[in-house]
């Protein structure tokens, strides 16, 4: 009797170990990083992606869906205990509410696990049968990604760059209080905590103003979304004008220490715990808003894209590449809100996106990562129409605006050649030259009717998903 019980126990242990090992070996996990500067549409993207993967009626461009190889998809409890869960149900509820509204925006990192059961399409499909694979979607603010460029930048260098950026005529009107404070500060002054606080607060206000004016090259990102570290020394520093650094108790030395603490306490842990584990990355960019804000905003966006991509470039210094066990092998740059323009202009939008990240993308491609630029809309908020105006047929979009009233909009034509826009941006012009004007509109989410088996409507979300995940299914 005892012998039989013991044998049973051993068998159960072996079975348990077997299932664990098979989950480790045969249930691949793909970590998909979703990022973008705030208001780029991260939350809507994830909500729509997950909803569309659960109800796959509109995901025809995914090969696995078209071939009917995905048999089930469901949300599992996510495996990392220390990361908040992405509030999928709440956000989807917002889109399907009456009247629908946009979900609340990302304030910090969050994560969601979607498990898919697929049938293989390969040579061995007959042997393997259905298999499970997990998709971990990691959502984090794009500002944190910009912070990664601080990892190998000293305080003095960073300070100089921020000040140079602030001198740009388009930013000259921003942060008057901070500028006034800085004018009466020298790096060699003795550290006075009240003054330091005032400087940091004014600097944070300047960053906030810059972002509201449409600029995206903003560091340090946690000044905008401080979270529970607000007021701590690691978040109480600011760039200082050039001058003699002074002794150990000077303002410069204190800020330098705090800057290092910021990198050590916030940037590196994020890099190590989250960023370095990502397999696939989507960077969402609200290109249309930057076009609306003017040439300076577009140039700023280009610079911040270059900074973002330098984060995907390990090997520049050794400890970084040592940490980076895995590397991102597919990066998608998605120009979001493509539903705000007529589809005849989508190719130009994608072309502009491509031109914007061209240099950095070439580098990533050289290293063996696939990089693609697309124009997508995670949630299609408009319908299209053609109107005749001045003897020309013009494509317009039509959607809900404030108070739910309908608006018909032609936001302006994008040029065939994206270099015209980029050249204008680089030249530092105040406004767009003749014929390049573009004005963005804010649309409300559409009133969704949930047909059985269909997720929310979208533009090319299936294509984006195919690029990011197609080979893993």
């Amino acid at each position, binding site marked *: 009797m005892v012998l039989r019980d013991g044998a049973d126990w051993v068998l159960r242990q072996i079975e348990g170990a077997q299932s664990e090992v098979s989950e480790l070996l045969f249930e691949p996990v793909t970590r998909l990083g979703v990022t973008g500067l705030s208001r780029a549409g991260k939350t809507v993207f994830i909500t729509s992606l997950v909803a569309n993967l659960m109800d796959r009626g*509109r995901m*025809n*461009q995914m090969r696995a869906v*078209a071939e009917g190889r995905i048999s089930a998809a469901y949300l599992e409890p996510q495996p990392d205990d220390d990361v908040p869960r992405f509030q999928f149900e709440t956000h989807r509820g917002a889109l399907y509410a009456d009247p629908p509204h946009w979900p609340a925006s990302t304030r910090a990192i969050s994560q969601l696990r979607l498990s898919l059961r697929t049938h293989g399409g390969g040579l061995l499909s007959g042997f393997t049968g259905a298999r499970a694979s997990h998709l971990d979607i990691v959502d984090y603010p794009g500002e944190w990604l910009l912070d990664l460029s601080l990892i190998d930048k000293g305080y003095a260098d960073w300070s100089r760059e921020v000040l140079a950026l602030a001198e740009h005529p388009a930013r000259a009107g921003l942060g008057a209080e901070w500028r006034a404070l800085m004018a009466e500060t020298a790096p060699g002054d003795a550290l006075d905590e009240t003054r330091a606080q005032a400087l940091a607060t004014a600097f944070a206000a300047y960053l906030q103003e810059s972002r509201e004016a449409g600029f995206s090259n903003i560091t340090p990102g946690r000044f905008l979304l401080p979270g529970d570290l607000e007021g701590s020394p690691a978040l109480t520093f600011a760039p200082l004008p050039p001058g003699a650094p002074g002794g150990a108790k000077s303002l410069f030395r204190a800020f330098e220490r705090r800057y290092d603490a910021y990198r050590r306490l916030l940037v590196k842990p994020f890099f190590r715990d989250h960023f370095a584990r990502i397999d696939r990355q989507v960077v969402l960019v609200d290109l249309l808003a930057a076009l609306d804000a003017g040439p300076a905003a577009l140039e700023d966006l280009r610079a911040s894209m270059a900074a973002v991509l330098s984060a995907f470039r390990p090997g520049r210094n050794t400890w970084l590449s040592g940490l980076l066990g895995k590397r991102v092998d597919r990066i998608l740059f998605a120009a979001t809100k493509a539903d705000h323009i007529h*589809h*005849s202009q*989508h190719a130009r939008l994608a072309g502009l996106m491509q031109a914007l990240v061209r240099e950095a993308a070439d580098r990533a491609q050289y290293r063996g990562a696939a990089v693609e630029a697309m124009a997508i809309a995670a949630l*299609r908020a408009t319908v299209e129409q053609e109107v005749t105006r001045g003897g020309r047929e013009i494509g317009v979009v039509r959607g809900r605006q404030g108070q739910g009233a309908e608006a018909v909009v032609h936001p302006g034509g994008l040029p065939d050649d994206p270099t015209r826009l980029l050249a204008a941006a680089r030249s530092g012009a105040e406004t767009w030259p003749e014929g390049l004007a573009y004005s963005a509109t804010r649309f409300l989410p559409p009133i969704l009717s949930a047909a059985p088996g269909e997720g929310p*409507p979208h*533009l*090319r979300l299936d*294509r984006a998903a195919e690029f990011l995940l197609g080979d893993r299914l």
Partner: protein
Amino acid sequence: MTDPNAPFTLDPADLPPPAETPQTAAQPDAPPPAMVRAAGLGRRRGGWLGKVFWGALGALVLVLATNALTVTINDLISRNAVFGQIALVLLGLLLFTVLIALIRELAALSRLASVETARAASVAARSGTMAEARAAAETVVKLYRNRADVRWGKAELAGRMAELVDPDALLDVTERELLAPLDRAAEQEVVSAARQVATVTAVVPMAAADVVVALVTSTRMIRRIAEIYGGRAGTLGAWRLFRAVMAHLVATGAVAVGDDLISSVLGGGVLSKVSRRFGEGVVNGALTARVGLAAMEVCRPMPFVATKRASVTSVVQRALTGLFNGRG
């Protein structure tokens, strides 16, 4: 005498407008790849001499036949009015049926041509604008206007049409929704034809029987496939189809390559050790399957892009399952 190398400027207004710059000028067409040329060879008509010869011969036969007919009927009328009239009525009936048949042949040919047009349009639209892609999809839908078996796909496509904004996406969906069920039906035809040919070769002990059966079965299979894809072929059409399929086979080299492969891959090698006839059956079945798959490619109103074409091996396996050893 001024220096010919001295710098100078001209007013552009004095000059005629420049011809197209090299960037925008049309590139000279590169020679088509060898395969395309081979396909062209396969379906090339004879030279002008051949045309004149066949034309003259046909005209001569026609003149002689008309003459003989006229003489005979005149002769009949002059001998017996009743017989003559009966002959006249019969002749009229004959001409009438020939006319009807001719019209039907023409209609069949035009249907075949419209399938070809649809294919060309969908190939072109893949890299074109959305409007072109919509037009190409509409053409394919129109081919199956009255068909019940793709009704579901048509409804699905109509629902998706407004959602899609990429030409290739639209064409992919059209192909999957409309043509996938037809592909399955056509494959079934190929499977049963291959099975028939293989059985007859293996079982019927007459020497020439397999050749006759292969020819008859292939011709019927091609016709059925064309019907499934909406290009119902008449007699002339069937002949044209047959030529097109054969040209396609020659062009893709499918007849010559892999006869020896088939035998070893499908166990034909072992089978032919056991029985020479069974081995021949497998090879003949495989050839029929090749002809059938080529026919599918020729008759399909869109090329295979979004869906995979069936492989010869899989079709032969399905055809021979249960025929020889219960497992194929």
